């Protein structure tokens, strides 16, 4: 969790942005028609639900009454949606949600057809931390056990394919923890590979905490490490206890952006509506009910978050993409 001072600052910023937005609307007449909110997933996925929960609240805080239409553009590990947003007209009528670092990893591999650093960032919806878990019946009880196992043979982690966010998180975390890892890849989504670990396809699994927590509640999975600086899962070792503070940098940010070159006035209107929507009581109630982490950031902070993620993953690039 982030310090609460940030929340206070954001709250203070909201009023200022709202005022700016009002002025901006008078100048631009934005929005005059429906806004497409692009989702890099099919209906029903995590990003899809975020957008469907936020969009109605955002509509309330726009200076004129238009619809924000959740638009699913699944495919090619998020690349299709990213390209669509990147190439759209920067008029504010196309915005989208991004999986960071997931989509950056596509850009890093080259030839992706978009440049995240050029997008007009509007803010952040939430952030998820990662953790490490084993099946409930596994003999492994701690990270030390995994390290010991790794002395005899590579530890098997279940994961998505090389384009997946969890795949790269697993490689980095295992490396930081001095665990020799072998990945069993190709699972269709986070629930799928977590079940793989429960079933015993592999020894352990690394993914975002909410997914792990859900399975752990049903006594099918045991979370042995929580990569936050201070663990939110009881009984799990955290990044500090493990002596690897860098682990806390492995996170999944859900950021919102518009195409490059969005006029400043329109950016202010959209970013303002987003920040206020994320503080809306309905959205907060929804997040609580569904165990989603809402941790808003302003547009400047989101851009900074992107930069720090890029810096982190660029550092790991030679390790993640060794020349074959």
């Amino acid at each position, binding site marked *: 969790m982030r310090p609460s001072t940030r929340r206070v600052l954001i709250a203070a910023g909201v009023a200022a942005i709202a005022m700016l937005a009002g002025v901006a609307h008078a100048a631009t007449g934005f929005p005059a028609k429906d806004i497409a909110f692009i989702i890099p997933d099919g209906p029903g996925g995590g990003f899809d639900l975020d957008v*469907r929960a936020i969009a109605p609240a955002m509509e309330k805080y726009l200076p004129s009454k238009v619809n924000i239409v959740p638009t699913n553009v699944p495919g090619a590990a998020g690349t299709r949606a990213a390209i669509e947003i990147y190439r759209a007209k920067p008029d504010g009528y196309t915005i989208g949600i991004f999986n960071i670092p997931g989509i950056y990893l596509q850009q890093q591999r080259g030839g992706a057809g978009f440049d995240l650093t050029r997008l007009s960032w509007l803010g952040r919806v939430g952030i998820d931390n990662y953790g490490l878990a084993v099946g409930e019946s596994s003999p492994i009880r701690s990270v030390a056990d995994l390290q010991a196992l790794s002395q005899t043979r590579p530890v098997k982690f279940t994961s998505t394919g090389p384009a997946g966010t969890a795949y790269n998180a697993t490689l980095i975390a295992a490396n930081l923890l001095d665990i020799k890892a072998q990945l069993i890849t*190709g699972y*269709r989504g986070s629930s799928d590979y977590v*079940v793989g670990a429960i079933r015993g396809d592999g020894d352990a699994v690394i993914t975002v905490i909410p997914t792990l927590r*859900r*399975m752990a509640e049903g006594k099918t999975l045991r979370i042995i490490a929580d990569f936050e600086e201070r663990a939110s899962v009881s009984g799990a070792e955290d990044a500090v206890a493990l002596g690897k503070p860098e682990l806390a940098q492995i996170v999944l940010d859900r950021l919102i952006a518009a195409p490059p070159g969005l006029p400043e006035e329109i950016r202010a209107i959209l970013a303002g509506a987003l920040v206020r929507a994320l503080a809306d009581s309905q959205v907060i109630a929804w997040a609580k009910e569904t165990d989603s982490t809402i941790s808003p950031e302003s547009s400047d902070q989101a851009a900074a978050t992107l930069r720090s993620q890029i810096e982190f993953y660029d550092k790991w690039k030679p390790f993640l993409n060794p020349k074959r």
Partner: protein
Amino acid sequence: MLDVWLSGLQGILQVRELLFLALGMVIGLLFGAIPGLGGSTALALLMPFTYGLESFAALALSGGVMGAVPMGGSISAILLNAPGTAPSAATCLDGYPLARQGKAGLAIGAAASANSVGGIIGTVTVLAVLPIAKRLVLLFGPPEFFLLAVLGLVVVATTSRGKLLRGLITGGFGLMVAFIGYDDITGDVRFTLGIPYLWDGVHLVPALIGLFAVAEMIDLSIRGGSVAREAGNVRITRTLSGVLATFRHWRTVLRGSIIGTVVGAIPGVGGVVASFLSYSLTVQASRDPESFGKGNIEGVIAPEAAINAKDGSALIPTLAFGIPGGAEMAVFLGILVLHGMQPGPMMLIQHQPEIYGLIWALTAACILASFIGLLFVRPLALVTLVPAEILVPVITCIALVGSFAVDASIENTVVTAVFGVLGYIMIRFDYPRLTIVIALVLGATAERNFHQAMLMADGSWSIFVTRTISLILLAGIAALPCLPILRARLRRGRGSGPVSAGDQR
């Protein structure tokens, strides 16, 4: 146990919930009947609307949609050879030939009753196994998935008797097409020609719409006339004998329902496999396999029973672990989450009344949708008399728009067009389409799970024989090709010739 079942039923048996169920059913029938739309599109469109509803009402609405979609899908499969949903492609194989013979009423009647019976058997099975669902799902890992896929391929290969070589050619081609795309295991990109769309492979639904609907429209426009032109007179009134046919062929219904239930419970295999497997095994078991594909009523009953039986059991992996069996279940998962029901091991404990309510809603929708289908047989069947000049452009438009609508990409329509031409060539030169479909569906599953099994076992093949279920599946794969030979021996031993399969008049 009984009180939970009843509390679920009670939750659904409220005026408001029943209204939502009926609404869902009508939407499901409509969306099911239009190729390319299907349950996932219907649920995705309804999703924001369910946001404001209470959970039982939302479940009744979604249950109504999911229970009715298969019936809608089979109506267009039978009447126009245009499978409304992917699993109903199997119904085309014999349903459409029946429609061409002017027996659309018979086929729809049989489909409707097989639908209901399959749905009921599926529900009963799910109610029985739900308490042990968690363990059941965990029994199947990558080695088992791989062998299941191989089993599916073998079943279908052995079905195309008489056309074995042609079946193998189209099956092999289907596999090659299935291997197009981004390989999740190695990170390699295969045969994508630099087109981002192909990263996810050739999408199944657009390909099926092409293979069946568009191919048929090309054929029809060349032949001229109407779908049931050769029939002379169209006997729509035989609906009742169609309904009764299901009960006469109770073995086929039972087989289909069991296959549907089992396949449905295995995550990630999906309805297409259920319906095609049921169809193939029915052909295998039949004493008159040659009559299939030419309008054998059992060829309609078998897939229909499986499709509906699968719906109930597909809930097991979805609810217990959040692993959706298909696109429709993925959207439904989203609706559950919107209503604060996070699928996972706790779901089966925390939300029992809702789960049972949903199962009841599904079953009720499936039975009621069959009745509605029967009510409208007469006007619907008239479609088979519409002249080609009118029917072809209308259906081609719907097919292409539907294909586009799957995920709003224009590339889908290109896939549909290409597979349409391919499908026509296959009709023209008498190549079986069954094998290409099953290869398209199972190719990627087989490959991925084989890779995973090898990763699990450090490249040792022993993993396929050291796990009980794998071993059973292996034995099944080895035994299947021997079955027809064995049966032929037995029959010769008895000295009796093949008996006609009933409704082949």
